[in-house]
Each structure stands twice: as structure tokens, then as C-alpha cells.
């Protein structure tokens, strides 16, 4: 397999330029046989089954062990709390608040990251600024700037947006910058050869060439931002502020509404899953389709 180079495959292609359609060989046949082994099931089914398994185990544990319901809720109770929370609008409102702050923070953070990385390829000074700032601020746990944010903006949404933006700038900037630095030299040479000037080189060659890195940067940023926003809301809840899923969880604990605590956690987990799926879709339509993801 490793011995067959692309050049060898070329000899198979007819002169017209289109290679022959894939021939049906014997190795396609076994796949038609119905096979109920775990590995032969579609991914989504496997994942759903794992979730079902988890819920069953969870319910069984709560029913059988008779654990104190003030410490642990059953999936059934959590399910009821979820339905109720979304029906009376409380959980929905909290989720909306968290997502709004998160998206705003991501938006500002990405914009700043794009400006920083653009300046970094544009000028040597910009590169130095990016290197110094990212190496100083990236290792800092983003929640650590929350006290400063509260000092500057009070117990407001602005403070949260600030903290999230700071959390997402650095993973995005560092990854985009890596994407720029490792962009294929030949393609850059082609860009200059066809007469692209600085701005178009950056927007139409460097950015698409850096897209695989950019996407993984945004993924990391999303994970950072998500953790940071929930943690900040918990602190806000403790400090007497309102709104958001972190606040919802903390508040439910305060009123000993344990199913609601779990409902909040489940909501966070499910949103995480959905966003991961969005990233997979984005990758499929871009870097995977273009053969840029290895």
C-alpha cells in the first residue's frame, strides 16, 4: 500500500484525464453481508446506544441504591425538570443568556484574533506583539481575569463578554498564526506569481490555506469560552448577579432543587455535543472536501 505512489496510479488514468470508474472488486462484497457487530454499525447509532446505556445505568443506580434525592437525581426526574424548565421558560432563558454572552465573546475575540494575526503577517512588529501577548495571556486561566472585569464593568454582561473574549482570542490567534507560518510555500509563490498583492494574498491565499488550523483554533476557543462562561456565571451567582446556565445551576442548588441542578448540567453537555456536530459539519464542507485535513 505504502509502495503505490500517486505516479503509479496515474498510469491507470486514461488520456482524457478522467480516471476509470472504480471497478467492483471482491473486497466490496463482504460489506453487503448483514453484520451486527458493534464496529459495523453507523456512528450515530453507536453513540445513541452508549447514551441509552448511560441513562439505563443511571436510573438503575438511583432506583436500586435508594440514594438521597437531595444529593442525586434520577434521569426521569432530570427529564421532568428539563421539560418543565424549558416550558416555563426559565431554563430556556438561562441558556439564551449564556449563549448570547458566549457568541458575543467569540465574535469579539475572533475579530481581534484576525486583526492580530493579519498584523503579524503584515509587519514584524505585529508578529512580535502577537508572540509576546499570546505567550503571556494564553497560559493564564481565563477565569482569572474575572475580578478585573468585575472591577471595570461591574456585575454586568459586558464583564462576561470581556472574559470570554479574552479566553478565545489566544487559541484562535495562535492557531491561525501557525496556519499562516506553515502555509504551503509553493501555493504562496503561485499567489505572488498570478499577481496577488498583499491584501488578497492574506484574505484569498493565506486564510484558506490556514483554515485547518483556524478551525481547530476555534474549536479550542469554543471549549475555553464555554468553560469560562459557565464558571463566571457561577461566580456571578455567588456574588448575587443573575442570568445564565451557571447561575441557574447555582441558584437551583441554593433552593435544593437537585433535578434542576442536573438539568442545567445536561443542558450544558447537550449544547457541547451540538456545537461539536456543527464543527464536524463545517469541516466536512470545507477542509475535508478539499483534502486539506489529514
Amino acid at each position, binding site marked *: 500500500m505504502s509502495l503505490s505512489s*500517486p*505516479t*503509479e*496510479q*496515474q*498510469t491507470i*488514468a486514461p*488520456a*482524457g*484525464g*478522467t*480516471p476509470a470508474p472504480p471497478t467492483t472488486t471482491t473486497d466490496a462484497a463482504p460489506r453487503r453481508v448483514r453484520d451486527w457487530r458493534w464496529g459495523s454499525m453507523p456512528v450515530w447509532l453507536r453513540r445513541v446506544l452508549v447514551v441509552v446505556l448511560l441513562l439505563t445505568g443511571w436510573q438503575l443506580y438511583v432506583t436500586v441504591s435508594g440514594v438521597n434525592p437531595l444529593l442525586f437525581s434520577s434521569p426521569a426526574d432530570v427529564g421532568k425538570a428539563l421539560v418543565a424548565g424549558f416550558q416555563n421558560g426559565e431554563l430556556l432563558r438561562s441558556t439564551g443568556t449564556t449563549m448570547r454572552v458566549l457568541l458575543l465573546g467569540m465574535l469579539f475575540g475572533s475579530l481581534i484574533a484576525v486583526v492580530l494575526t493579519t498584523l503579524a*503577517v*503584515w509587519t514584524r512588529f505585529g508578529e512580535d506583539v502577537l508572540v509576546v501577548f499570546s505567550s503571556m495571556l494564553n497560559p493564564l486561566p481565563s477565569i482569572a481575569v474575572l475580578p478585573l472585569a468585575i472591577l471595570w464593568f461591574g456585575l454586568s454582561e459586558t464583564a462576561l463578554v470581556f472574559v470570554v473574549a479574552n479566553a478565545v482570542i489566544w487559541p484562535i490567534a495562535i492557531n491561525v498564526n501557525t496556519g*499562516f*507560518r506553515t502555509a*504551503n510555500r*509553493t*501555493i*504562496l*509563490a*503561485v499567489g*505572488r*506569481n*498570478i*499577481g*496577488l*498583492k*498583499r491584501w*488578497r*494574498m*492574506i484574505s484569498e*491565499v*493565506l486564510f*484558506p490555506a490556514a*483554515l485547518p488550523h483556524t478551525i481547530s483554533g476555534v474549536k479550542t476557543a469554543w471549549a475555553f469560552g464555554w468553560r469560562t462562561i459557565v464558571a463566571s456565571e457561577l461566580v456571578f451567582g455567588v456574588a448575587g448577579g443573575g442570568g445564565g446556565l451557571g447561575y441557574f445551576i447555582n441558584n437551583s442548588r441554593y433552593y435544593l432543587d437537585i433535578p434542576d441542578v442536573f438539568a442545567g448540567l445536561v443542558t450544558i453537555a447537550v449544547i457541547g455535543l451540538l456545537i461539536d456536530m456543527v464543527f464536524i459539519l463545517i469541516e466536512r464542507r*470545507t477542509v475535508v*472536501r*478539499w*483534502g*486539506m485535513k489529514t
Partner: protein
Amino acid sequence: MVQPSPPRTEPERSVPHPGERPDTLLRVSHASIGYRVNGAFTRAVADVSFDVAAGETIMLIGPSGCGKSTLLKTIAGFLDLADGTITVAGRRTLAPGPDRAVVFQEFDQLFPWRDVLDNVAYPLRRNGRTKAEAEQQARRYLEMMGLSRALDRHPHQLSGGMKQRVAIARAFALEPVMLLMDEPFGALDALTRARLQAELNAIAKRTGVTILFVTHSIEEAIVLGDRVVVLTDPPSVVREVVTITEEAKVVGSEQYRSVRTHLGSLLHRDGKEADEDVAEFTD
């Protein structure tokens, strides 16, 4: 990293050049090019001069590392001359530009995020064509390279030979003043290479474009070239410029053999190696 590239081409003063043909398009005059490695300047090209007439296909051949790519990159405007002058259509080649379209050896010279049609049409759009004009022209040149059925594929879905065909179509579609090709078939198998050589000859004849083609294969030089510039080991100078007659292009003919032997001797190669090259070529 991205160098600012203002239009630095300027008209060269018209100094009469001894023996210059009136239709000279590329003039390399006492070119000296080197690299700065760890502070020390090493010369790759010592003193190279040759002229290329409009419509000519000139082959640049020489031992590995003699500075063929260095010279081509300097003509393309990617590298600076240490000494001498290079002009294309009377203008010094100080910065890259679409008037000197380059085809590289590397298969990854296509934009992976654009399909085949757009890889050829996009450079045209960026050079003043409307989207419709660009696509029409791209289709025409892709058809010439036998790629009409692969227009909506992405580069990673193409074989190496097809990728090079797209790169050639892209370069021709720009309708440049001249084409610079740096061993574009170097990484292809013998059969595909022979096929692409024939296709290149056909499209070159059809468009009448001027080509500078770097190769390390004597046979390729004979099959494609009107003349062959043979370089010495680095720091290189021109050893000889060999004219290839129509008769010499007939593989196996008396003339072909004698030109091949002659080029082989210029490259310090004994007959055995040259024979191996033929074997590889006719596989």
C-alpha cells in the same frame, strides 16, 4: 512573510546588444545569483548570458544543483540578481507577475480549496477578466489539456499528471508574455511524462508562446526544445547552447543520437547513463 510587491518592473535602457536578434524576448545578461547562508554569500549562478526569441522553447539543462531553479526563480522575480540584468520584453524582472507564469515541479501548486475550473479561472478574474470571461477562457485551456471532464473536482481528487495538466492550463490561460516551467514533469512516471510532453508541444505550437523549461533529462530537452542551454557545475556559466533541429526530434534517428551524445558529453555523462535514460523514457 508576505513581501510588499509594488510594480517594480521598469523599462530597461535600450543598449544595443551584440548579436541580439530583433525579436529577443528574454535577455539574460551576465546574470550572477547567490544565496546568503549563515551570513556567508555563496554564488550558485556565476555568469550566465543567453537570449530567447519570441515563440521559442528554450531548455535549461545542467547538473543537479547547478542553479537552474535559481535562474528560473530570478526570471520569475522571486529572487534578486547579485549582478547582471534580466529583461523580459525589455523590462527588468524585479518582482513576480502574471506576465511570467510559472509552472512548478510540485504537485501541490494548485489551490486545494478551489475546484479545477476555478483554479484556472481565479487567476484570470484577479487579472481583470469578468467571471464569465474567466470561466470561458479557463474551460478552453482546460479542454486543450484534456481536462473537460474534471472541471468540478478538487485537486486532491486528481492524479499527479492531472494536477500538472491543470497547472499548465492555468499558466497558458493567463496568456503570459512567457512561460517558466521548472521540471514540471520531474515527479511523473515515464509514460505520463511522455504523454504530457506531447500535450505541451501541441499547446505550445497552438499558442506560439515563449517557454523557458528547466529539465535534467537530455531526452526531454531534445523532444521539447528549439534550443538547449547547457549549464556547468555551480557556480555555473553557460557551457554551450545547442540548437535542436526538426530531424533530431525523431527519437531513434541518427541526428537524435548524435545530439543526445553531444549533450551527454557536455554534462560529463558517459554513454551508459544516457542509455539508462532512454530505457526509462521509452518504458
